[in-house]
């Protein structure tokens, strides 16, 4: 089920919240689990068993690892359990990718698997892995209540598109959490903000990208307009989803870590990745990069570690060489920054932003492409290598038509709106105005989002592919 759908907003969510708030505290995890299973089954009825199997493996592995703490057996259990999770992920997500490549290399014709990618498998697999590893490391005790662990893994706000919430961060709240009007108000505000990012910006910019793809009147500037729009779309799509997840979590009494921190304000690619999909970056840092030795190794090994992490980051996003290339593309810049680039970038703030945005825009062109040919054509179009005009009528039309949306998108990707609100709140009158306008704006945005949903069919989130 999509957050940005009428069925979620006006059928599922109200019923789920009424049930959740109506039952006494000790039953809240049970209700949370039940409604989360309904939520998952709504979009993926066949694969709900797969998720339950993963949860059961995680549950028993956690208990056994905890039981054998300090013994070599704990490691064996961890390897076995992690192996099961990764095998399931590999089978469903990477099976056809492996077969396709095998067939290409060996000239054989192994038939492809007739399986669809289970929604959210990358997210919940990583969450269970983080739980098992943290129990092994002794960071958290094993969870002995199956419902609590299942509620953590299957929790609907973050189940299908993240953020990747660590068990260690949720352990206390799974046992006891605060429900308050403050949490509800902050949560609903964050949710509506995220919903608006998704529907009013990401989806609208997505239309522009689709229009570009269908256009027969492409030009160099139209290619750039597309690349910029997609860069903004993917940010608002994914950060919007994270906002909704964080908001819903807050309403339910959970505090999820932030997943985005104005990534397009970064002054280097290193900083960009500290601000973009923070939960994924920190997962790879803590569970892959540091165990490989991080940067406390020889330079060659350090670069090897970086390449491994970024190849995996690319692969996590999708089973395609495009994504591997995308990950390695970033690895090259990260290594370059570590060796010498950072020193030069520090000299000019403007140059830093230009460098980051150009790199990020090009990276998302690679990300968008379904194959290398498409990426080559798009980058060639942007650089004027395709023999197309510099400017076209369609470009001018869509620039005019989407001008305000693009400006709103660019401003919304910076801390500007937050700064303006903060500035307003500095005066007593301004604070009063903000306080009065906030509920009005909230309802206005809900109505507007509903209007967009009613007018169109629902739009799947980009990150559901992963």
């Amino acid at each position: 089920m999509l957050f940005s759908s009428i069925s979620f907003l006006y059928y599922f969510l109200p019923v789920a919240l009424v049930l959740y708030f109506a039952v006494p505290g000790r039953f809240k995890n049970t209700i949370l689990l039940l409604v989360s299973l309904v939520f998952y089954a709504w979009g993926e009825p066949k694969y709900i068993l797969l998720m339950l199997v993963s949860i059961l493996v995680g549950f028993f592995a956690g208990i056994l690892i905890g039981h054998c703490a300090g013994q070599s057996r704990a490691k064996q259990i961890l390897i076995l359990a992690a192996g099961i999770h990764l095998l399931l992920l590999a089978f469903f997500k990477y099976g056809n990718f492996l077969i396709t490549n095998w067939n290409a290399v060996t000239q054989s014709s192994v038939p492809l698997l007739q399986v669809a990618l289970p929604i959210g498998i990358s997210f919940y697999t990583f969450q269970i892995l983080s739980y098992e590893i943290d129990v092994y490391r002794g960071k958290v005790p094993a969870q002995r209540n199956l419902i609590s662990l299942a509620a953590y893994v299957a929790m609907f706000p973050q189940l299908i598109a993240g953020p990747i919430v660590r068990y260690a961060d949720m352990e206390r709240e799974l046992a006891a959490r605060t429900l308050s009007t403050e949490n509800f108000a902050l949560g609903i505000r964050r949710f509506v903000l995220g919903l608006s990012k998704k529907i009013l910006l990401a989806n609208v910019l997505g239309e522009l990208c689709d229009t570009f793809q269908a256009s027969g009147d492409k030009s160099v500037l139209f290619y750039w307009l597309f690349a910029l729009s997609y860069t903004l779309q993917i940010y608002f799509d994914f950060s919007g989803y994270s906002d909704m997840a964080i908001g819903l979590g807050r309403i339910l009494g959970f505090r999820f870590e932030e997943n985005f921190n104005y990534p397009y304000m970064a002054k280097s690619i290193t900083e960009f990745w500290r601000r973009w999909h923070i939960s994924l970056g920190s997962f790879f840092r803590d569970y892959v990069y540091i165990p490989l030795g991080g940067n406390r190794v020889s330079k060659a090994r350090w670069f090897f570690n970086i390449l491994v992490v970024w190849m995996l980051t690319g692969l996590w996003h999708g089973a395609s060489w495009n994504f591997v290339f995308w990950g390695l593309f970033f690895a090259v810049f990260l290594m370059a920054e570590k060796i010498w680039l950072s020193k030069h970038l520090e000299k000019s703030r403007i140059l830093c932003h230009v460098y980051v945005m150009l790199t990020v825009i090009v990276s998302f062109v690679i990300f968008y492409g379904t194959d290398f040919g498409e990426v080559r054509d798009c980058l060639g179009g942007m650089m004027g290598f395709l023999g197309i005009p510099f400017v076209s009528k369609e470009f001018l039309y869509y620039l005019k038509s989407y001008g305000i949306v693009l400006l709103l998108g660019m401003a919304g990707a910076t801390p500007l709106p937050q700064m303006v609100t903060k500035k307003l709140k500095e005066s007593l009158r301004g604070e009063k105005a903000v306080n009065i306008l906030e509920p009005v704006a909230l309802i206005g945005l809900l109505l507007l989002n509903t209007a967009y949903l009613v007018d169109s069919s629902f739009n799947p989130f980009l990150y559901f592919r992963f």
Partner: protein
Amino acid sequence: MAEKTKNQVVTAVSILFFLTICIWIWVKKPVDYSDSERRELAQLPELSWDTAISGELMEEFDSYSVDQFPMRDAFRSLKAFFVFDVLRQRDNNGIYLKDGYASKLEYPIQESSLDRAADRFSYLYDKYLAGTESRVYFSIIPDKNYFLAAESGYPALDYDLLMDRMKEKTEFMTYIDLTETLTLQNYYRTDTHWRQETLIPAAKKLAAGMDVELTGEYEVKTLDQPFYGVYCGQAALPIEPDTLAYLTNEILETCVVYDYENDRTCPVYDMEKAYGKDPYEMFLSGSLPLVTITNPVAETDRELILFRDSFGSSMAPLLVSGYRKITLVDIRYLHPDLLERYIEFDGQDVLFLYSTLVLNHSETLK
């Protein structure tokens, strides 16, 4: 303290909002048909194990929840208002408004579609017309965008390219150019189609091209209700409605229209349809695969076979005075192979009259 109060207000207002909508959804009775969108609305799906496991149930429920949302039209209008007046976007779902006209963006040229249309026409020609004495003509009806889009800065088809390509691919037919007889005023402001009461010059151009003389005067009659064309609903904005007029005379009133699909005779102008969901369907009762108009007072034995789309429904009555019989064939609804059961091709005039909209989306042609 102010923060606490604000949070309480936000919580209360949000709960009230969701509660109101939820109650409204529960008490609202489902509607079968949307007049503004001219389509059946999704209904509550029946629960079954198979549809639930396949996910079909959920998909159908999602459609139902959107289609049956309270005040659906008002919400669509809110979105259209926001798109046009706040975001200043130039079209909403491809519909744009210019000088009081609503139209839908139609581009880019689908060259494969043009080729397919030409292939279908060639197939008909080879199967039924090649080697016969039939005189075969072809004419393209430019859609409203031809006069409105490009000059208003909207993306438009390259109409010259479209027409040249179609002419090149259909050299076995004599082309009759209608563009000089048409202007924007020949089209409804709120609908795709052309206005029959303005089509006499175009009809004369077609007739002249086919070496036929049209006779008689017409009386203009107007429906006593406003005509909300298809774009009214799609635009979801208040647009001044059109008036729907039609041309009639004694000849047309004596004509007999036979509808093969329903095995019935009907009038040239179907008044039941005129007051139905799509008043434009009053012209020869709308979308029918095979219809004949017989002119009992014709002073000629000439017959016309008109391969056509919906634009042809309002044009055909204006050609009646030049023929004893006009057979209208819509190959979107009737496969060409079945035609030999109904028509004997033996020297009639044959006119392929198609709008650019159908040519650019010829996947509908059988």
